[in-house]
């Protein structure tokens, strides 16, 4: 009996000691070692910049590789030198020359030359390689034809290397934002000598991106890659600007569950989360406001109309549905993330004035619907295609309620899992569908080109020759300001025909630890890690 008491007391003391002892928060040891720990949503599709297509992959690839230009850590639209130390364009922005730095090296010490860029662009555009994002390079003369196999000779594509450290790019249109494009991973160089060591140029799935084989040119190199666990990078000693780099490494964790990610952050296991569930924003505002970041993001949420549907061919019906949506209420009560009500497709910037076409006006909405013949007992009956994501469910229910309340419309919601939803939308097998778009680069064309006839992302059946003529005119306009005015006209025309209802402009909501320095709001959330630092703070 005495033994039992002794053991019970011992166990009790151990439990109390465990509960009572205060260990160092796990994140502090990483901060001391200058290793940034980031939540990164899911396991990446891969690490080959010419194969992947997502934001998750971009977050990792941005650490490993570097393009001709680099994002400024705090000023959107300011281009810092990357692989190129200088660049210049001709008067109409169709011919660009990039002067590569002579101290640019791959992480194995081999010099990085213009030849690497030629190889990279040939690889991503090679018809047999099948790169999903090859279209990002279609601005280059002849790139699209080469990618489609219409021309076989790559020398006819508008890229050349007059000497080892000079790269010339000829564009098919006036593209003043080319330096922005070069920050996108599809424009990054890939190591010719390593890729060819592990397979042919146009061959995919070769092991060149494995930790013991990969060679990169960014501020960090790949150290470890444990599937579904973490990806660890470490400082690249061969990087040309290594003195600027303060971090010793970055650890990316593929945490798909946003609640788990928030719990890990609150338990001091992460420096930053990838996102924050809307339900947790209020909680974070109350208890962790110093960590909460709510920043403008280059994206638009909208509802697509299938304009080939007999009911929705009538513009008045589309307008009525658009005017009956109270975006403010949706943001305040459902999203809670500081989003902005959208009155157009392109998020406004300093230079671009988004046409103000859509706003909440239930009285006019009702009138328009009556003009379209929906009076008395004749009700508008439509279906809204949605995904099974939690936010989509709640948005769909809010729209359903608003259309019922303001228009008396009977809306049934069809929730489908992601691929079925995409398949139905692409096949125009819907009436209304939830949608969203994130810009690839900060220029209106990333939001406007998709509505051209036959574009795979259009998915509305809408087509307008005048709209396409305006886009073509903008492409040929030399003056950047005049170009933007033409794009505004194009958007105005697009919105007046209303193949979509813009609902809100995105923000990113996430948690950032106070020990992270040099991390500023950026429209594309594409933080250049080489300017980020970590500092241990006593009261965090």
């Amino acid at each position, binding site marked *: 009996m005495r033994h039992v008491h002794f053991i019970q007391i011992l166990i009790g003391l151990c439990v109390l000691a*465990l509960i009572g002892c205060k260990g160092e928060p796990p994140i502090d040891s990483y901060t001391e070692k200058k290793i940034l720990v980031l939540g990164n949503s899911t396991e990446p599709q*891969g690490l080959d910049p010419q194969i992947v297509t997502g934001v998750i992959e971009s977050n990792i690839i941005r650490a490993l590789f570097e393009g001709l230009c680099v994002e400024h850590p705090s000023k959107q639209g300011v281009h810092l030198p990357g692989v190129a130390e200088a660049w210049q364009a001709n008067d109409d922005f169709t011919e660009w020359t990039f002067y590569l730095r002579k101290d640019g090296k791959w992480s194995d010490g081999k010099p990085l030359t213009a030849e690497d860029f030629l190889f990279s662009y040939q690889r991503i555009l090679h018809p047999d390689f099948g790169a999903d994002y090859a279209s990002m390079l279609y601005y280059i003369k002849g790139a699209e034809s080469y990618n489609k196999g219409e021309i076989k000779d790559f020398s006819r594509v508008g890229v050349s290397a007059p000497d080892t450290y000079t790269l010339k790019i000829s564009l098919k249109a006036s593209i003043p934002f080319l330096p922005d494009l070069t920050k996108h991973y599809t424009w990054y160089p890939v190591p010719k000598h390593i890729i060819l060591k592990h397979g042919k140029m146009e061959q995919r799935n070769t092991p060149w991106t494995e930790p013991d084989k990969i060679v990169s040119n960014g501020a960090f190199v790949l150290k470890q890659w444990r*599937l579904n*666990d973490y990806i660890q990078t470490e400082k690249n000693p061969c990087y040309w600007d290594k003195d600027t780099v303060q971090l010793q490494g970055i650890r990316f964790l593929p945490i798909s569950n946003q*609640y788990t990610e928030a*719990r890990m952050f609150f338990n001091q296991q992460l420096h930053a989360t990838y996102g924050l569930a809307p339900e947790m924003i209020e909680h974070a505002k109350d208890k962790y406001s110093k960590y909460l970041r709510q920043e403008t993001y280059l994206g638009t949420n909208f509802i697509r109309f299938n304009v080939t549907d007999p009911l929705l061919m009538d513009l008045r019906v589309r307008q009525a549905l658009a005017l009956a949506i109270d975006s403010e209420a949706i943001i305040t009560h459902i999203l809670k993330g500081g989003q902005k009500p959208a009155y157009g497709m392109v998020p406004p910037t300093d230079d671009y004035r988004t046409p103000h076409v859509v706003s909440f006006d239930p009285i006019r909405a009702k009138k328009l619907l009556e003009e379209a013949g929906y009076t008395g007992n004749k009700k508008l009956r439509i279906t809204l295609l949605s995904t099974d994501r939690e936010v989509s469910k709640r948005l769909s229910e809010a729209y359903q309620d608003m259309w019922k309340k303001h228009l008396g419309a009977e809306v049934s919601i069809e929730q489908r899992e992601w*691929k079925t939803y995409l398949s139905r939308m692409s096949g125009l097998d819907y009436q209304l569908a939830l949608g969203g778009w994130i810009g690839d680069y900060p220029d209106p064309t990333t939001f406007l080109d998709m509505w051209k006839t036959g574009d795979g992302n259009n998915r509305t059946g809408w087509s307008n020759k005048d709209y396409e003529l305006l886009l073509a005119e903008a492409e040929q306009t030399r003056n950047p300001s005049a170009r933007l005015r033409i794009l505004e006209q194009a958007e105005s025309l697009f919105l007046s025909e209303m193949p979509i209802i813009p609902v809100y402009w995105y923000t990113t909501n996430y948690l950032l630890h106070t020990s992270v320095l040099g991390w500023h709001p950026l429209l594309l959330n594409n933080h250049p890690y080489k300017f980020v630092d970590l500092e241990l703070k006593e009261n965090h």
Partner: protein
Amino acid sequence: MLRTIISRLIQGIVVVFCLLLITFMLVRLMPGDPFSGDKAHAPHIIQKNKERFHLDKSNSEQFVVYLGLLARGDLGDSPVKEQPVSKIIRHSFPASLILGIAGMSFAILIGIPAGILSALRKNSYIDYGTMVIAMAGISIPSFVVAPLLAGHVATRIPLLKVAGWGDPLDWVLPALTLGLATAAYLARITRGGMLEVLNQDYIRTAHAKGVKPAMVVTKHALRGGIIPAVAYIGPAFAMLITGSFIIETIFQVPGMGQHFVNATKDRDYFLLQGVVILFGAFIVFANLAADIILVMLNPRIRS
């Protein structure tokens, strides 16, 4: 005995083949393909990628090609993750195996003694208490238990993390969550099995002969009473090892369970097929192992 094992193995191969065939066809009946995404890709690119994975061929042709790959010991490449399926499974399996073994150990260590105790103290408060807890363990789903453990236990004990898979202490909470329902089932099954045996004449005889009560339980009753539990442990073990999507995502465990759900959502045909083959084989082997142990425990089956 050997003939039985060989015959069961052949049956198992047929079962796994049927499972694969059904999965192969069903997953291709679902709308969409591995290459459709939020941002649409050019038709010629999609066509090129389909050709790369033979997805431009008819289903029967694809199946023949896939069987050819399997015959060479290749599970194919994942069209979504751009990696060999065998590599993905190889990387995920150790975490699932550790979690499964830890979960089952917890279930056996808690469930079986609880069941025995409950049977020995039939209709007492110990019995009622144990069975109430067991019923709760069966009824409360893991998506409730896991966040509770992460939010209220891990945050109070500094050595535990709310999620992550770095050192052995990280196994504790996911294994507890995973093993809880199995422990509860085991407790109920063991109690039932023990109660049946404890009423047998030979147990009464042992008591009458003056054998110590502890000896009666361990030497005589347990051997027969545990048989239903052993029959349950086989398939349950296979289920635990093949992972749990919910537990893996809540505790950030890099295991196999998430591949099942994600591969289905992403239409990652080859990964899904690979995982199904593995899961099927596990269940077949676990059942076979349970049968062999049952034969060893129960001489009547042997005859």
